[in-house]
């Protein structure tokens, strides 16, 4: 139940993020919207790996190596999310650099003003 709830929230964040990216003309706002969507994706990923009543995939005094199979949740999605978070941050940084450069050229952050290339 928790997993489904988190997953639904994640999907909602993705959709909200996409909606923001599709309707905001301001480039910075688009980037913000995408970072919301990315957070949503991370939630979905982690939620998929969640298993009710199990613990984090760390072996310690509470969970020994022998009983790990029955006690821990799936570690793979977590590893993937870690990677995804860092990559997302890289892309965001790049987009911000673009935003800065775009503003430098046109003194505007309106995506509708950067349409010299078309057709």
């Amino acid at each position, binding site marked *: 139940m928790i997993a489904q709830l988190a997953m639904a929230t994640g999907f909602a964040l*993705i959709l909200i993020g*996409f909606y923001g*990216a*599709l309707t905001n*003309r301001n*480039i910075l706002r*688009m980037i913000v919207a*995408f970072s919301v*969507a*990315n957070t*949503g*994706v991370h939630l*979905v*990923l982690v939620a*998929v*790996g969640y298993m009710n009543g199990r613990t984090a995939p760390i072996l310690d005094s509470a969970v020994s190596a022998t009983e790990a199979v029955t006690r821990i949740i799936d570690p*793979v*999605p977590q590893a*993937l999310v870690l*990677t*995804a978070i860092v*990559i997302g941050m*890289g*892309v965001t940084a*790049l*987009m911000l*650099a*673009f*935003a800065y*450069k*775009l503003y430098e*050229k*046109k003194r505007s952050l309106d*995506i*509708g003003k*950067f*349409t*010299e*290339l*078309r*057709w």
Partner: protein
Amino acid sequence: MVSAVYIIIAALAAAFILGFLKEQWRGLAYVITLAALAFMSWVSAGWVWALGWQGAEAVDILTAGTEPPFAINLRMGLPEAVLTLLVNLTGLLSALYLKEVLFRLGRRSLVVLLIAIMALSGIILTRDIFNLFVFFELVVISTGGLILLSDDVQSNSRALSAGFKYLIASQIISVLLLVGIIFAYHATGTLNIDGMAGADLMALQGGVIAFFLMFIAIVAELKPFPANGWALDIYESAHPAFSAIFSAATGAAALYAVDKLLLIGGVSWLPVATAIGIVTFVVSNTLALSQSNDRRLLGYSSIAQIGLVFTVLGQRDILGDDYYYIAFGVLIAHAVGKAGLYWLSGLVAGRGLTDWSALRGHPLLIFAFLTFVFLLVGLPPFPGFYAKWELARYLAAEGRLALLALILFGALIEAGYLFRWFGYIIKRERPAQGVVSDPLKQVVIFAAVVAGWAMAFLWGELSGRANLLLALPLLFALAFLLLEWLPAWFKNIVAISGLVGYFAMTYTEYDPLRLIFIIIFTLGGALTLLASFHTSGKRIGFYPGAMLMYAGLVMLIRATDSFDFFAAWELLTIGSYFLILRGKHSEPHALSYAIFSLAGAFSILAGFALAADGAVHFTIQSLSEVATPLAPWVFILLAVGFMTKTAAIGLHIWLPGAHAEAETDVSPMVSGILLKAGLYGLMMLMLGMGIQELHGIKLNYVMLWIGALSALLGNLMAIFEEDAKRLLAYSSIGQMGYALFGLALMNHLGWLMALMFVINHYIYKSMLFMSVGGVAKRTGTRDMYRMGGLITLMPLSFIAVMIGIIAVSGVPPLSGFGGRWIFYNAIMSSEYRLPMLIIFLSVPVAFLYLFRLIHTIFLGQLKDEHRRIKEAPFWLILPQMIYVACLLVFALVPGIALRHVDRYLNDFFPNGGLGWDGLLITSQYGYWSPINIMIIIGVIFMLLFFWLLFVNRKAQKVKQFNIVFSAERPYRPETTHFAWNFFAPYRKALGFMVQPFVTLFWNTITDFLHAAANLVRRLYTGNGQTYAYHLLLFVVVVFFVRMGV
């Protein structure tokens, strides 16, 4: 072998080492980068060698010392090796090309480039779906970086906004991909691609949607229509060397990613791939039609090509072992060609297509351009050609005919805009700015040229067919590329000796039918080449084109396999296109020739593919064995293809311009010689397939009508022409109509007559084009009403024309009459009355225009400005005199050629042959004695001549200007010329028949295509947000299409 993981290691190590260097040590940083890229290429090349030639097995490379699926593994098999080699070499060459830019930007730009190439290799090598995602993100970021760097190069914000649009799209893509991956993982419990493929994802809970999301995300990287606005903008604005990487390397890597993904999806997703691919291919090519910016055009073309490869991926289920041969054929041709063109665009200063005419002074660069265009269009001998052929074979065998038609349609459009572009280069005014001279960049471009030809050779070797690049005629033609620096006269000698020599070497190998054609193509070709001695200078471009055409013609006759036949057909088409393009005002006509010819060629391709029914080797002879339901369609497709070449009515609009605008010595070649290729094809077809019926209609009956109408309308159009060369061109349409009619009669005499036409038409049309060309050269005009009275100044030309028109019109005593005689015999013995009537009608029509050639050009009053004209140059007159001799000989003893053929035809049409009794020829209706006729006519002529002399002995000689204009000078003086609009009354009566309906029809189609392209491309508003809508719309549409199925 060096493990493939070192490709990744080398790039990363080099990238990290660059950080240690001081910003100033740019040379060192550059060298390290080049070394790393060279090493990466070397590793890939080693694997290509090991896997491709030494039979090594594909290897899985484990990381972390753990078996997959628990750790990421890479795979190095032949496809991976080839693709990584492609990617790394593109990277290496682009790095060389970018030397100046990279030096200016410093080490961090080198890092970006290195990582981009590494990530592309990673996409190709990895077998883990999430790892694929990581590499994709690396590609996205490095592409964004490369674009940012381009921005500096051109110092505008265009590239910058394009890059941002790309990042928007890639954000959406990565969200979809991640969601897809995690649910696929949840369903299968693995991230390994092969593991997922083994787990039958489709059958699992949520599996279909999970796969859909992954699929659509990766497919979006292929820039499918319409979700590709951002890609177009990048292509247009980025530095050409980055566009080269983006097009060649990124495209290849993304395609391979989809290929891997389709392993998971299985067969049920192949139709989706096919649909997306083909829509992209056709639409993008259509959109490219209305582009005027070179890089954007190349962008559309890139997207289209990737779409085509994607379509091929969608045929995986039927392509069997040839899957990679075909897919890689198309892909590598695209990659080399597109990278080459982008690199080339860096040398051209202007961005308009017409600015490329700056290349004109650089034959080597033009050669490079052509190599790339050939690669893209898939012309022989390049890999795309082989791939196209095999693909058509499979598609036809599986009955995927609509797809085949769409592919050929798209390819035709692509050829259209690429050849139009080539026309601009050759014909348009050269811009003020020339070509950027940069030796390093040129080296890179020629590396691509060499790669293209090497691939051509390789694909020929792998084809399991005769390697086109080992065909002697083709090699001979290509050798002229190396002789281009020599003077034209020398090349002419080589060309003539080549043609004659080839005939001498091989003449024993042909049956009588083929012998006639080979004589016309080689000896006849040599004869027309005599005229080329009149030119001076180097005449760059003429000999490769001409010899390519002759090579194609010769190979056509020698071909027994349908593949060889088709390859020869394309070669002769291209060669003649180059020849036609040389004319002063021939740009649009050459283009229309190229498009019609290629369309015809594709029709032939489809016909053969259908006929072969999947068989790898299909000989021309086996046409007779094609089974019934297919046979009429095969017949139609092939016939349409061949009739395009003979310019049958409806498919003829390219001919008048092409033949008339060509150079003086080219017109005889493309008219007298080239048209025969179409007839040869028709003969092969009809010998093989005989009389076919479709819905109860005999197809040869249809062709009979087409022949008759061509004869009538061709002649009618000729009579209203003022332009002497156009007149001759229209006349060819009529003449080919007769020949077609004769063949379609499908009886002995009809064929004999057609062959008679083959010989006669070659002789007199070549001759007439030469003499009229000579006159046009001397007078500076082709309009007949601007000429007159040239008989005294150009007597030899006059004789040639007179003999020529006697022969054409079929009056005794020359061989034309013989043709006509056989012809009348032939139609007497046939039951088709109505078309026969039309043919009869068209004969007097021919008189009307033929007589004008004598009357208007040579008789009447000499124009003042022509008083000092000399006879045509010796080298133009010489072949004409030889033709006159030939005509006389052939008229006297037609049997030297025809009796052999007559006997040969007995095998096919046993009844109704002629009797050959010494010099007397008999048919069931009468006999023909050429010698007697000649004597009788000679006597009558002399009598008349002397009688005329006698009655005119007292005639007063009037000086030419012994007349006075009684009124003011008319506004358009030529309208008062007696020869102007000579046949106005006929035009009133018959003009309705020569309205340019056909031209109108084809123009409407062209306009429609352009209008559609202009409408659809409005889709690309330039707004990055709109592109995001397109992308999501694409996702939704594909979802509904797939789930609806």
